[in-house]
């Protein structure tokens, strides 16, 4: 009965929509839950809270927003929750490329197809970092040294973005690296500063303080062109001074970590559109620019077909690496 009346209502709405498009748009009627697929304090959590703040400050919706952390199982907890909330447009899930990469390599009970993609809102870059006093000045030197020694590469989590990139470096640079997984990028950075590792591939924000403090420095960035000009990080250098890895003979053109936003599966297109528009409005605010700059991320906005294409391409790529490493699960 309830379903029939909803159907009738939406049918009525559709009819009305023809006449008065402005009235037909779906609007939330109760509080919205933002699910960060990471613990408090991490990059994903920061994004969810930044978006929450911007929406509240600019009153982009009438309804209050609560941020809930479901970061268990490297984020799987949040995605599984999203899957279980199918049809509920009041749950917005914030994650990374984990949403499609994790199901490839571990037996988690969700896939990204269980969710409705909304947008990829920002891209985090990856860099190759070494200890400040390491003898190599370029990625080329690093690869040469790695070829004849047992190099230890640290990273966050296992079979996740960091390890995928490590395996890509092995292949492109024809070297062998021992990958040591830690809980987070911050932990990895400290291990490098202490000299327990030879290198890692942290995002800019994860190692900014360490670079400024002179305990480690980036060799190159995995991006097609150098990062945009910004304020200097150390006395002499800023992000734009870091060469691309391709420039230095490490042929990996692009590797990025998108920050992604999802709704549960089986929501209506109107509901999805509402959130796409909401995120677009968020992105137009000065606070968003501020957030992007402070976290040294790249501002992007992929949605709809573009986002789908991005996921498909990334998926193919990760599948290839995972297949070569024997990580794929059935």
């Amino acid at each position, binding site marked *: 009965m309830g379903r029939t009346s909803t159907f009738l209502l939406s049918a009525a709405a559709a009819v009305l929509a023809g006449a008065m498009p402005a009235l037909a748009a779906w609007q939330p009627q109760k509080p919205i839950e933002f699910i960060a697929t990471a613990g*408090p304090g*991490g990059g994903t959590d920061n994004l969810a809270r930044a978006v929450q703040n911007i929406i509240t400050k600019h009153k982009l919706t009438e309804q209050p927003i609560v941020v809930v952390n479901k970061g268990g*199982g*490297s984020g799987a907890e949040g995605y599984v929750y999203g899957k279980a909330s199918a049809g509920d447009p009041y749950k917005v899930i914030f994650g990374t490329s984990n949403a499609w990469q994790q199901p490839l390599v*571990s037996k*988690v009970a969700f896939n990204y197809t269980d969710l409705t993609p909304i947008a990829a809102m920002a891209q985090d870059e990856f860099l190759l970092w070494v200890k400040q006093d390491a003898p190599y000045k370029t990625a080329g030197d690093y690869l040469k040294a790695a070829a004849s020694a047992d190099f230890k590469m640290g990273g966050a989590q296992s079979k996740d973005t960091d390890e995928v990139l490590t395996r890509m470096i092995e292949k492109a640079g024809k070297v062998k690296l021992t990958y040591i997984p830690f809980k987070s990028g911050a932990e990895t950075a400290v291990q490098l500063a202490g000299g327990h590792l030879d290198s890692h591939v942290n995002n800019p924000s994860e190692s900014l303080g360490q670079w*400024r*403090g002179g305990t480690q420095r980036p060799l190159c960035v995995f991006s097609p062109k150098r990062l945009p000009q910004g304020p200097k990080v150390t006395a002499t250098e800023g992000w734009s001074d870091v060469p691309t890895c391709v420039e230095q003979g490490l042929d990996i053109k692009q590797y990025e970590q998108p920050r992604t936003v999802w709704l549960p599966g089986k929501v209506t297109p109107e509901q999805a559109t509402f959130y796409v528009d909401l995120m677009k409005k968020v992105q137009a605010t000065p606070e968003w620019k501020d957030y992007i700059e402070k976290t040294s991320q790249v501002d992007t906005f992929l949605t709809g077909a573009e986002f789908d294409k991005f996921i498909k391409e990334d998926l193919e790529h990760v599948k290839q690496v995972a297949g070569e490493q024997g990580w794929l699960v059935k």
Partner: protein
Amino acid sequence: MENLQELLHGFTIAVTVPHLLLMAVGVLLGILVGVLPGLGAPNGVSLLLPLTFGMQPVSAIILLSSMYWGALFGGSVTSILFNIPGEPSSVATTFDGYPMARDGRPTTALATAFGSAAFGALIGVILITFLASWVAQVALAFGPPEYFAVYFLAFASFVGMGGAAPIKTVVALAIGFAIAAIGIDTVSGSVRLTMGVDELVKGVSFVVAVMGLFGIGELLVAVEEEFHARAVSSKIDWREVFRAVGRLPRHSVALLRSAAIGCWMGITPGGPTAASFMSYGIARRFSRRGRHFGTGEVEGIISPETADHAAGTSALLPMLSLGIPGSATAAVMMGGLMIWGLNPGPMLFVDQKDFVWGLIASMYVGNIVAVALVLLTVPVFAALMRIPFVVIAPLIVIICVVGAYSVSNSYLDVVMMLGFGIVGYLFKKLFYPLAPLVLAIVIGDKAEDAFRQSMLLSKGSLGIFFANKLVTCLIVGGIALLLLPLALQLARLLRKPAPSTDGTAVQEKVII
């Protein structure tokens, strides 16, 4: 000396009317989230974080760190009164705090806990003031093998001391390790032990386990024993608060030892939880009244509380100077630092002197504000114990259910919590120790990660645990702590070859 000057400058920033008000607000909010189980300091701080974005960074961190102090204090309240630890680090406080409160001395228990906690925090903050740069270097020396060695030391100091039959301790530990293994494994990335329950991928939350094991478990035992609605005749006696605090200096050895353990674990960074367990374990071995631990001993409260707060305070130092959070709350604050546009790391001490020293000065002042406020609330909290058991028992069930649910808004957590309640009850009935079980749940997976990371580094050779002086000392220390009780017993046996009747008595003791 230079540090002292900086500190004095810091005081001029921290001791202003708006900042003192912020501290009071932060502490009160902190006590609130600390007392409400399932909320806890990390959640409280992350709830408050968005409000601070418009503030000056130094005001923001003063508010958040005051909340942290408040929550640390508040967490002890439920541990002592209801046997429900709100934070992992206050589990060890329940061992003697709860029996003491139940015996009709809740005021003494609370005041002792708060007094020693303040002492621990003070030592921690003094350490930060004078040894900041040295401490930062120590923390850097810790790689995976050193981490493992620190956890090993914590296990050894706690497990080796006996109390229960050794085999039961091992069984409890093993069950704890198995529970800690549930969910996604950091090192291999695979899902373990979810037994077909999809949601278990998140692992078992500490809060859920502890509320069941301690809160519900204790309740079941009490119900069975027809807990005579012991309307604990605790008068609201303000003088007792001061008497209890005044008695603290008599336990100066325990205070100093626990503070040292706490600072060491906070810096290294084993964290407050490992610190409090380790301190309790060591106190039990070395205290003159160690035998009576678990029945409401004063030193059984002092040791974990002092170490917990010393570690909690000194854990903020690695966060500031290295950008590695020593606790979950520190991690949230670190996220805050980034949003305020500050980058934790060695340069913070150079670039942001006002911020760093304002914060350190606020730790002195904030802790004084916190302990004053919290001591004022002692009689109020203690009065809760006068509520008859028939009223309080259902309340505890409600608190546990709501607390378990609010961890991640999950019904499964409530079911698990009740399951843990039954486990806790069975453990008590069968005389299995709960402490090793909890310790394994809390730091079992960290110890496992560190061990396997070490094995990756060394390509499978155990030699890595003896590769340098630091790790060798830690491991040897751990082994020594494990074997000490055995060695003492052996020595006693050898020294006094007693007649056969006495011999069996001694043997009996070895088993116990």
